């Protein structure tokens, strides 16, 4: 075990494969040219380039914010009168109008999903999107309960704005976020009849972490502090008349806390930085069932210290992590299970396949267990091994076949007349071409290592090499694509 696993990686160890590893973990991977560029800038600049990014332009305003706007006072009056009169026709008209709007809103939700997927595929600032995905899983909020696509859009924007910013501000913002307030019944939390949902999850899942020394009484007191935090249409509102301004006792601290006061008490706990850093560690470094191991615990401690020193700003923590020896150790390479989104986005960004149909890709990630904007519960996605089972493995393999070849995993594979956009797979080995045809041995070695992210097992190399010999031992587009289909079917391709 290294004396300090967070010590900076020596410059000489930051090679092409380390740069590729950094790009996969801090983002979604890149083509050989992108990796070369990152490598050429050296470790420090490469990490700065990823972590201290310039926020990208937010073009979310293109979506309709009014589809699910609440009824106006006038409309409410008409509806109430119709109900009193027993005017079924008017009531029915309102009911139908609402159904129509819900339908339009679900269509917009699908558009927002495509928009976000496309951002991840095309972004020049991959950590911004990667952390947005992290926060979406952390402060998990699902459409079925929220039923307002624009509110999820606002929340997504919040995550992006605070991607590597400070956790304290993000947390104070999330208790004002309309989607979250709807999802966890914050809007129903009133003086005299508190709803504990949001307070409980702030303690258990969002800030402090389960089992970190809070009691049911603390939850009840926290819920009192949050009373009156609600929203009107798209905006947060503090309803003083619903707020319980009395004294509260939370985790041994006494005060007439409101929502911010409650969050501040949580942020002052030493467990908070450790809890968040362990989650980041599982997301970026090791997602195994026994993570963090002994050295990993040391890393998490070091990260937590940095997080406290930086007043909850994440940039310094991630910068330190992405420079550390621990992060680049051989056993950390190609060792975490790609989330479905990571699998799809990385394969496009890294192999350079055409994007294909985004609806198919999103359907595929859903079948693999990750439906954007609809996490399975407030716990988000468990990640790691839970992504993998006998059914999702076939979906993963077949999605890659689709991306490589444009063949849909249906029975009517040669469907629809229109030929799929070709995938110029030969570009991946361009840099191996000097004069004359490239050496098949070199190409096989490179494709395996590049695609799997680590030195392949000798059996795998032998299998791919034998296949190439079998089909004529030539290097051309079709053969490279066929080899990629084989390599992406390998169980270890699911690792990043």
């Amino acid at each position, binding site marked *: 075990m290294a004396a300090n696993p967070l010590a900076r990686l020596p410059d000489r160890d930051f090679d092409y494969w380390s740069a590729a590893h950094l790009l996969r973990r801090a983002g979604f991977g890149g083509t050989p040219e992108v990796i070369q560029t990152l490598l050429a800038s050296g470790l420090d600049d490469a990490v700065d380039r990823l972590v201290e990014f310039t926020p990208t332009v937010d073009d979310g305003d293109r979506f309709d914010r009014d589809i699910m706007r609440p009824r106006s006072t006038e409309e409410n009056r008409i509806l109430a009168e119709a109900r009193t009169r027993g005017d079924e026709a008017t009531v029915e008209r309102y009911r139908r109008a609402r159904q129509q709007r819900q339908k339009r809103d679900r269509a917009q939700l699908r558009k927002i999903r495509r928009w976000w997927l496309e951002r991840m595929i095309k972004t020049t600032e991959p950590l911004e999107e990667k952390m947005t995905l992290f926060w979406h899983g952390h402060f998990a909020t699902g459409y079925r309960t929220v039923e307002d696509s624009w509110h999820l859009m606002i929340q997504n924007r919040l995550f992006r704005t605070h991607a590597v910013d400070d956790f304290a501000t993000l947390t104070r913002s999330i208790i004002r976020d309309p989607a979250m307030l709807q999802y966890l019944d914050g809007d129903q939390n009133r003086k005299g009849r508190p709803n504990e949902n949001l307070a409980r999850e702030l303690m258990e899942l969002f800030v402090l972490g389960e089992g970190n020394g809070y009691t049911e009484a603390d939850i009840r007191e926290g819920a009192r502090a949050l009373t009156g935090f609600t929203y009107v249409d798209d905006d947060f509102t503090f309803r003083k008349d619903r707020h319980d301004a009395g004294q509260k006792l939370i985790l041994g601290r006494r005060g007439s806390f409101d929502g911010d006061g409650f969050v501040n008490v949580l942020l002052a706990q030493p467990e908070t930085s450790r809890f968040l850093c362990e989650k980041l560690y599982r997301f970026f470094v090791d997602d195994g069932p026994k993570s963090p191991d002994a050295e990993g615990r040391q890393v998490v401690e070091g990260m937590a210290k940095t997080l406290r020193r930086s007043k909850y700003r994440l940039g310094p923590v991630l910068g330190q992590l992405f420079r550390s020896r621990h992060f680049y150790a051989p056993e950390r390479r190609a060792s*975490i299970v790609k989330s479905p989104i990571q699998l799809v986005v990385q394969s496009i960004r890294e192999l350079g396949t055409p994007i294909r149909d985004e609806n198919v890709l999103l359907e595929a990630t859903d079948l693999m267990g990750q439906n954007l904007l609809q996490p399975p519960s407030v716990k988000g996605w468990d990640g790691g*091994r839970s992504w*993998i*089972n006998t059914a999702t*493995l076939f979906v993963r393999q077949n999605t890659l076949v689709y991306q490589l070849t444009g*063949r849909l995993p249906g029975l009517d594979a040669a469907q629809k007349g229109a030929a799929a956009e070709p995938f110029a797979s030969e570009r991946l080995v361009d840099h191996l071409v000097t004069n004359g045809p490239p050496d098949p041995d070199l190409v096989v070695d490179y494709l395996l290592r590049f695609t799997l992210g680590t030195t392949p097992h000798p059996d795998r190399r032998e299998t791919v090499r034998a296949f190439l010999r079998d089909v004529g031992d030539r290097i051309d587009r079709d053969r490279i694509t*066929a080899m990629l289909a084989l390599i992406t*079917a390998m*169980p270890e391709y699911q690792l990043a």
Partner: protein
Amino acid sequence: MSPEPRAYTRRVFLQRGATLASTAATIPWFVQNAAAGVTPTTSMVSSVPGIPDDRVMVIIQLGGGNDGLNTVVPYYADEYARLRPRIGFGGPGSNRPAGAALELDEATGLGLHPRLTGFKSLFDDGKLEIVQGVGYPNPNRSHFASMDIWHTGRSDGQGTGWLGRYFDNTCNGSPIPEAAISIGRRAPLALMGDVQKPVSFEDARLFRWKGEDLHDAMKAPYEKVVRAGALDGIDPDSQAAYLMRTSLDAQISSDRIRAAVRRSANAGYPRGPLADQLRLIAAMIRDGMPTRVYYATLGGFDTHGSQSGSHANLMGQLGDSVKAFQADLDAQGAADQVLTMVFSEFGRRVAENGSGGTDHGTAAPVFLIGDQVRPGVIGNHPSLTDLDGGDLRFGIDFRSVYAGLLTDWFKVDSASVLGTDHPPAHLLRS
């Protein structure tokens, strides 16, 4: 139970696992685990005397909200006729415009949709049980939300599926790849546990790698890659080793499922998606798959407008497909080990709407089919006069139905699976 010896009953399967345990690197993960920790009482094999090892539950989900009142028809009630002037059925011999229901029970004045002749004959044979008025408090009229509530068995619709939890509780921590199989693209939440995940496929021919269609030469290297199991030199606790073992499991599942359905019966089934699914399921049951729950779905029940024709087609499909399925099970001697449950996320409003359809409602009947059901009609028909804002009030909480099935069919403690104390409904014979 089937008289002929089964190639792959669960018990034989586990014994094989035990004898193979010495070749740990090449046998699938789930067999390895099973062989390591299994005694009959802790395994999935039931150790209760007299309970067959191979009890199977088949779930048929009617997606979209089936109109319960036009499925089991209270033709006796004036309110029904009054609120459904266009789409409501009359009693036997009536000349109502929509037609006459099939008489179930003269005394109660209940009938079946005229196209449910399949259910009628199952009813007459004592193989159909109708549980009336099944629902839950504070009904949710969103398809998704209500479906989630039914799938999880929880009022907030959050968390794991009720059958997923059943497997989690009984399978000793190691996932069993084929314990639950769903026919369809998406695995239903009901089958999702923390540990246990269902196998789902739309068509067994697709439950395989599509890359082999690219070139003949690809099949052999693919097989080599995905069936190798954990390669030597790989840390057995690593994510890589886990993936390699799961990959081998996936191939074995695929082989077994595709072999089973190749031998599926053609005779006797009507056309249509539900019949196709049930035929596959019957084939897998015949093959002795270690599967305890199969899941089939039939969609199209969201009948907001002009429902008479479309709902009649669905009813015909449902009744005829289930009847054919039951006959297939009878022929293979498996009828006593299979229980089928039919449900929908909600029923529809009592009054028809202005478009000759019905809008989202609440309580509706659940159907149980099999040799071991308590045949007949269970529970009272919900009142058509004491409505809750135009909707039926439920009589039996669906979790009591689940509890009854868990207790009497799977012989497990229902409260520990459901996490609620809904009393088990008495649904099976004995």
